[in-house]
């Protein structure tokens, strides 16, 4: 026979087992028979691509690959031509060709682990289909299976191939990310339009997922780890710290906002008790409509800043000096009075009887102890001075 061109055998279609002379023809076959949308007849490039397209554009979930053998209908497995075929299936196919019918069913379901949230929710919007750009738990998946899943958009199949392209080096060049090409599917809302978010190259994804786990964060760092560059250099980036934790949580960790004892704590202060929170010595400005010019009373149920009033007035003077936040324990049950308030006498307010869960140990505040670290206690009022803060009348 002419050419013994066995690159492992003639190209065959994983989905339906048919054989072809040429891989190009095989691919054409796959696109026409297995990756064609039954609704709009658009030909996609891979099974997952078809699934994403149907979900995003038609809001319909597809659970099996059209025209495929029953054991080969897994839509999540990414096959392109001869690429992506699980090795067991390759072996089985060869055995079948040579031995004729060993009938062992190859297992598919390889990367089923992929998405966290893929049960297709009808009507839940396009983005539910795929993990989108998220480098969601892709650990177990062999590189090369994923790129397609990362694009959020049916228009992205070319995109999906891009990383593959880098790996196989054999694929036709696809139009680049095409970030701005919005699908004209919806009027003015840029809904469902092309993922401006590029699919990260698969190879980096699993590792970046692992790297970005912080503090035992089991969640995929998600969102914000999009490496931007696509094959053609187009890309996008989510402006957010890489950790998938809310901005407020990240900010609250910052020393400026933490209620920790400051290193430059006043030496006069006894060592802080661990429970104690910051105490604020704020005098708050009053304004005309609030006719009580008397004490601003903090009714504290013990855990939160309660101050000793006597110390307060003198303490207020120290406001400027106080940069440090100190843990200022306060005696439970003592009602603090804010400094600067016209009424120098501490006003006692009955403490709520049900305090136990808030109980903390407090100690009287020393004069000059001021508050919250880093934040200039705006409200501090000097005795004798008008209660009004210059800024806040």
């Amino acid at each position: 026979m002419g050419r013994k061109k066995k690159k492992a055998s003639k190209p065959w279609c994983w989905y339906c087992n048919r054989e072809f002379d040429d891989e190009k023809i095989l691919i054409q076959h796959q696109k026409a028979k297995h990756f064609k949308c039954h609704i709009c007849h658009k030909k996609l490039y891979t099974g997952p691509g078809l699934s994403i397209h149907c979900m995003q554009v038609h809001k319909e979930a597809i659970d099996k690959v059209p025209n495929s053998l029953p054991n080969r209908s897994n839509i999540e497995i990414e096959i392109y031509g001869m690429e992506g075929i699980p090795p067991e299936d390759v072996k089985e196919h060869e055995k079948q060709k040579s031995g004729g019918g060993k009938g062992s069913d190859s297992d598919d379901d390889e990367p089923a682990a992929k998405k966290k949230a893929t049960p297709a929710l009808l009507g839940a919007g396009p983005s539910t289909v795929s993990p989108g750009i998220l480098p969601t738990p892709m650990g177990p998946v062999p590189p090369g299976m994923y790129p397609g899943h990362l694009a959020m958009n049916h228009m992205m199949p070319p995109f999906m191939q891009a990383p593959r392209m880098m790996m196989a080096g054999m694929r036709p060049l696809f139009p680049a990310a095409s970030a701005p090409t919005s699908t004209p599917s919806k009027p003015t809302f840029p809904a469902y339009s092309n993922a401006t978010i590029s699919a990260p190259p698969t190879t980096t994804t699993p590792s970046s997922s692992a790297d970005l786990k912080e503090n035992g964060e089991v969640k995929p760092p998600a969102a914000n780890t999009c490496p931007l560059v696509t094959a053609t250099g187009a890309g996008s980036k989510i402006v957010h710290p890489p950790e998938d934790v809310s901005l407020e949580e990240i900010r609250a960790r910052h020393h400026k906002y933490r209620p920790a004892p400051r290193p430059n704590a006043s030496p006069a202060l006894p060592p802080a008790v661990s429970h104690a929170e910051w105490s604020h010595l704020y005098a708050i400005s009053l304004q005309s409509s609030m006719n009580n010019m008397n004490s601003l009373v903090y009714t504290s149920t013990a855990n939160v800043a309660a101050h000793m009033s006597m110390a307060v007035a003198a303490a207020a003077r120290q406001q400027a000096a106080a940069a440090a936040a100190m843990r200022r324990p306060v005696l439970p049950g003592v009602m603090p009075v804010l400094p600067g308030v016209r009424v120098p006498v501490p006003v006692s307010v009955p403490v709520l009887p049900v305090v136990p869960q808030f109980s903390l140990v407090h100690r009287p505040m020393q004069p000059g102890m001021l508050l919250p670290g880093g934040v200039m206690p705006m409200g501090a009022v000097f005795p004798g001075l008008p209660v009004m803060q210059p800024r806040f009348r």
Partner: protein
Amino acid sequence: MFGSQISTGSNNPNKDVEVSSPPDDTVSALEFSPPSVTLHTFLIAGSWDCQVRCWEVETSGKTVPKAAQPMDGPVLDVAWHDDGTKVFMASTDKSVKCWDLAANQTMQVAAHDAPVKTCHWIKAPNYTCLMTTSWDKTLKFWDTRTAVPSMTLNLTERAYCADVEYPMAVVGTADRGICMYTLEGKPAEFKRIESPLKHQHRCVSIFKDKKSKQPTGFALGSVEGRVAIQYVNPTNPKDNFTFKCHRTTGAVGGYQDIYAVNDIAFHPVHGTLATVGSDGSFSFWDKDARTKLKSTELLDQSLTKCAFNHSGQIFAYAVGYDWSKGHEHYNPNKKTFIYLRASYEELKARPTQ
């Protein structure tokens, strides 16, 4: 409406009215007084400078600072009592305090094991209570007279955002969880749904049906410049959709920056919505026509919160660093601002052709 208060500084490209004496640090919560306050309009803002401030907003646009109260840690949320006399303040100090405005006194009314992320006041026909959510993964309801919550429900993860419109409440959590609650009779979990968004939840806002005025769905914003409109009971699955926003338009082949949607607010009258983004802009949208009504130029800092007053006449938005680029980009010298804008006409839905 706002006559002479317009400042035309470089950080106010929209020529909106600047609120006087703004907080010293980023605003984390912004709320106007409820309809029960008839004669005046008050604005409350909670900030990372640990204070909650109150201004009176006059019809001329002039804002008069009225009072402030500190918390022991940065304030994460504020809520008005329905009678307009008290304000609840939630903080990283793990407590919620009630600020009696008339007496200018505060009292602790709630506590969690971790910073309290949201607080909302519920006024039901047969009860009233305070609803709080926290990073301790719980949702608690408080009769503010007792120190023990009247009900505690567990969340799957840390609470990131919540909204209440009687009889519905919705909480968005870490790990993209969403849980809806019914508040009728007494609060109970109603439904947990799969998130329509693929990225971290940042803000949520309930909207009402135009005709029945009953809450019928919510808008959910994520860190990925996207908002999902989700109906509780959609008549058609296609009613639910998502749209992209707060992204810089990249040139073809260029980078596009995607910013978080920091807050969403619905206009109380028109039912249209506003989104404010980390990119420094705000946009107005009509979710029924699925169109954008307006977008603005970028300010030099992110927009962190927004709010409408109860009549829908005033739109307030706060400008300040939201930590989206980490602590390295934090510049304490950059000031925080709050702007006001006459919004009644702008938020009207355009007639559909």
